[in-house]
């Protein structure tokens, strides 16, 4: 029941906002719907806590420890982003970069995007997962091109083509998966694409086919994760889209894509029985982390900067999943959570910062502390958190990942060290002069809603110091699930 | 500790304070002879001190209390050093208060205070002298330390009394390393006491001064104390040298009071006479070096000491037998 609400609210919202999106109260409506979604998700979570994993709708939908917290996270960040985007978009309108019709598109596509992601998370059907991912892509393409500027069009176009092609690969992978599953599960009852069934029989699936399938799925969904060298769309899309979109792209979409990859990895590993998929993920992860870090070094656009930082972190998470084992998986899941919280909060502040300074160029933004202490401290603390400084939660996961890597694969640690060091230098050398130094900008026309920023950071801080047992239990269970 | 040793201690200190100017005077006289000048009277230093004590002190207007107290500090440190160094007898209450390394510390204290005082008035020559003095100091100390290392290797102690006793115990031939050490010590001693070839106590050319340049602002009783302290310093160094290299005659631990004391005093007198003459000879034979040469000179001293060390470590077994 709650599950239908979780999926229903965003779709309802999409329709409503498609009609009323240009009204004055559209933003508030957007917030309300997101809130409703969050509440539904909360109910769902409560139910899972009470009754454990569940499987509904002819087994087409399911909740297990792996996706339950992602659902909660997605709904939550969806709400906070909606709250943030209310004043942000007003300011954009005030600056004349948007008009009511565009806002209508924005609001309804925002809800569609949320719905698609929740669907992707909740569905048990690999085919449906693919459809949802595609839908998410399409909606975000429209969101990225919202400003209709040359740059935003170019970014959207690249995003569309690259991810479209990628997603096509993923479809082929899915077909192969289906093909292999059909051999054992048969066509009857359409169970051959249900993850739970596949997981049950994964040991009997034809390894060679699944190997092929994994390559296509990895390349496909990996493109959306932003694994180098498939990442090229990511910085453009992050930099040119509206900031709330950058926030949800970094904070949620990448997670969902990675979630898909991991679901596939579980099946394939179970089938071919070697560590090959893990090795692939580790290699991709390291490559991505290192490349991302070096890209960071010479960024001049604040949103591109943090876009690349997302790439770097996705690399680290992927590497951790590749390591496998209870601790590394635990760390990876934790890192997914804290990264999306931190990164979205950073994008909130970065967005307002660039609004205040009237430019996204890092050398144009100065003395944020002087302009608005909340923005300044938000950006500073957020960057510190994302750079893996304790006591923030990002450090907790990096602690586990690094120590594990040091024991299991020492050869990898130098790369991680380089990635983290270069990323630190790259980001901090840009953030410091933006936050500190002399002020030079007028105040914003609308007061920014920065409560979400500090709520996110507080949660990340809490996760670094104390983790609620229920959450830890989910992580452990999910880690076991992933193996 | 027994009263007798206290008496000894007191006696030794008084002797040191008393004859230190004499020693300086003796060196001056020998030098004069060697350069066939008519020598000043042997007691000249005492006359000078007496006269200085009579004069009124002329003090720069903004001389701070640091400047005024320094002479007393200098004198104090030197007397303390004299009390520590076993020049006559070894079992002295103060002798155990510091080993040779700590003794270096005492001299360093004196040096630092003198340099600070020299900088206090803020004259060009004063601070220049202070700088040079400190430079010579930090070059000399490592060499001196290596010399002490040598002694430690021989007798397993850096406490001077133990060294002397150690000599008294083993009447072996002189260890080869000692020769190197002795030469090094001599060079350091010359440098530390502002003698030729590093500095010239008799110069009147400010630009070449080191020690004297720091005293330019002192007068009367302050000057007297400083001069006395520096002659005491020379005397102390001589005594350290004796304790390290020619400890014969010093009343060692076991020996009872009277006779050994007399012998010790006589021995000390003899050594001082010889040493003074020797110093004078060296000074008149060598020419003063340019200041930039000072590092080389002290580096040589250092290397000699290290050489001694290595020699000992290489031939160690035979020497220790």
């Amino acid at each position, binding site marked *: 029941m709650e599950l239908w609400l979780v999926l229903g609210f965003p779709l309802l919202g999409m329709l409503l906002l498609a009609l009323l999106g240009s009204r004055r109260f559209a933003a508030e409506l957007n917030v309300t719907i997101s809130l409703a979604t969050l509440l539904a998700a909360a109910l769902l979570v409560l139910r899972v806590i009470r009754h454990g994993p569940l499987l509904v709708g002819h087994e087409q939908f399911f909740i297990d420890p792996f996706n339950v917290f992602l659902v909660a996270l997605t709904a939550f960040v969806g709400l906070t982003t909606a709250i943030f985007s209310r004043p942000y978009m007003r300011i954009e309108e005030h600056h004349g970069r948007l008009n009511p019709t565009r806002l209508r598109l924005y609001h309804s596509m925002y809800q569609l995007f949320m719905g698609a992601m929740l669907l992707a998370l909740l569905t048990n059907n690999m085919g449906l997962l693919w459809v949802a991912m595609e839908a998410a892509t399409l909606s975000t393409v429209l969101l990225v091109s919202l400003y209709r500027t*040359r*740059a935003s069009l170019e970014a*959207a176009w*690249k995003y569309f083509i690259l991810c479209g*092609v990628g997603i096509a690969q993923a479809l082929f992978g899915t077909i192969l998966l289906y*093909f292999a599953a059909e051999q054992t599960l048969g066509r009857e009852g359409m169970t051959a694409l249900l993850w739970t069934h596949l997981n049950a029989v994964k040991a009997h699936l034809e390894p060679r086919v699944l190997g092929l399938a994994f390559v296509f799925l990895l390349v496909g969904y990996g493109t959306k994760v932003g694994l180098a060298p498939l990442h090229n769309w990511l910085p453009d899309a992050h930099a040119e889209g509206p900031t709330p979109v950058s926030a949800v792209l970094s904070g949620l979409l990448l997670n969902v894509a990675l979630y898909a990859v991991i679901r596939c990895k579980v099946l394939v590993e179970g089938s071919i029985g070697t560590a090959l998929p893990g090795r692939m993920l580790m290699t991709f992860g390291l490559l991505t982390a290192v490349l991302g870090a070096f890209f960071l070094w010479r960024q001049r656009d604040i949103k591109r900067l943090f876009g690349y930082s997302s790439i770097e972190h996705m690399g680290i998470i992927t590497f951790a999943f590749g390591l496998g084992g209870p601790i590394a998986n635990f760390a990876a899941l934790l890192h997914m959570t804290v990264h999306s919280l931190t990164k979205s909060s950073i994008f909130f502040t970065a967005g307002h910062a660039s609004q205040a300074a009237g430019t996204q160029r890092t050398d144009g933004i100065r003395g944020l502390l002087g302009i608005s202490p909340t923005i300044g401290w938000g950006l500073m603390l957020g960057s510190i958190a994302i750079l893996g400084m304790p006591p923030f939660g990002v450090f907790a996961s990096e602690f586990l990942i690094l120590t594990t890597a040091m024991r299991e694969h020492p050869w990898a640690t130098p790369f991680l060290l380089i990635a983290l060091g270069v990323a630190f230098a790259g980001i901090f050398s840009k953030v410091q002069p933006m936050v500190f130094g002399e002020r030079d900008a007028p105040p914003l026309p609308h007061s920014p809603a920065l409560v979400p920023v500090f709520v996110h950071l507080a949660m990340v801080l809490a996760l670094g110091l104390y983790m609620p047992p229920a959450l830890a239990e989910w992580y452990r269970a999910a880690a076991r699930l992933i193996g | 500790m027994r009263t007798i040793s206290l008496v000894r201690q007191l006696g030794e200190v008084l002797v040191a304070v008393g004859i230190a100017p004499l020693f300086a005077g003796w060196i001056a006289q020998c030098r004069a002879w060697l350069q066939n000048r008519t020598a000043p009277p042997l007691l000249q230093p005492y006359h000078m001190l007496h006269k200085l004590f009579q004069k009124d002190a002329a003090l720069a207007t903004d001389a701070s209390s640091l400047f005024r107290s320094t002479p007393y500090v200098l004198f104090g440190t030197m007397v303390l050093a004299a009390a520590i160094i076993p020049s006559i007898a070894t079992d002295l209450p103060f002798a155990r208060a510091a080993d040779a390394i700590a003794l270096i510390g005492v001299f360093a204290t004196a040096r630092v205070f003198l340099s600070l005082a020299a900088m206090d008035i803020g004259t060009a020559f004063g601070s220049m002298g202070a700088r040079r003095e400190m430079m010579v100091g930090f070059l000399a100390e490592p060499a001196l330390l290596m010399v002490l290392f040598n002694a430690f290797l021989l007798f397993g102690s850096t406490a001077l009394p133990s060294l002397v006793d150690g000599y008294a115990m083993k009447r072996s031939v002189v260890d080869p390393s000692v020769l190197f050490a002795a030469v090094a010590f001599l060079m350091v001693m010359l440098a530390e006491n502002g003698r030729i070839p590093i500095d010239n106590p008799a110069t009147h050319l400010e630009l070449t001064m080191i020690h004297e340049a720091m005293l330019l602002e002192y007068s009367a009783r302050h000057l007297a104390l400083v001069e006395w302290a520096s002659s005491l310093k020379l005397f102390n160094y001589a005594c350290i040298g004796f304790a390290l290299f020619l400890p014969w005659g010093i009343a060692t631990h076991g020996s009872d009071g009277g006779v050994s004391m007399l012998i010790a005093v006589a021995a000390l007198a003899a050594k001082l006479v010889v040493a003074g003459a020797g110093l004078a000879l060296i000074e008149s034979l060598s020419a003063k070096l340019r200041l930039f040469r000072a590092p080389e000179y002290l580096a040589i001293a250092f290397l000699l000491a290290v050489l001694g060390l290595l020699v000992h470590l290489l031939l160690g077994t035979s020497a220790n037998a």
Partner: protein
Amino acid sequence: MLKSHLVAELLRLLAAGLLLISFAMLSRRRTQRLITLLAWQGAILFLSTSLVAWDAGLTELWYSAALTLILKVIALPWILHRLIQRLGAQWDNEPLVNIPVTMLVGLVLVIFAFGLAQPISMMATTITRHTIGIALAVILLSFLMMITRRKAITQVIGFLAMENGLFFAATSATYGMPMVIELGIALDLLVAVFILGIFFFQIREQFDSLDLHHLESLRED
């Protein structure tokens, strides 16, 4: 028995045609032609699907065949056609890499694809199993086409060709995906093309051209 043998023969023929069309696409310059070829591809897909449906007697395959006919043979080509009419964009376009080289690479890709598909064909039970390699080849070739062309529209055509290849793979390997998925895919595809249509106009009004070299400003300098 005889029937299914005949069907298999026909299917091979159609598959070969599909491959041929892909190569033709690689070699064609005129956008108009490419669209026609795309339509032909769709037609072949339609034929093969309905053949398989007839042979295996699967109703849902009939549906997807119908879907193909409507979407891939009629709707999409028509939309694209209208688009280039409206945009006045039926110009020649010179590929980035000259055509013989492209063909050569394509040839290598085909061999590679067959090599890859070998194990799958071995274990497939469908009568169409030998055509999986061709499906993969078509996918890779259209990928190649997207890489080598420099007009926005040609890239889209390549994209659609790739979708066709996927569809062919689905039918030939597994008698098609479950209906829900088919519908979903079709819907996505339709939406995608509409969005692309909007994009073309926006791009043109911004850059007054659909040439991709205008879209190279976002880069690390």
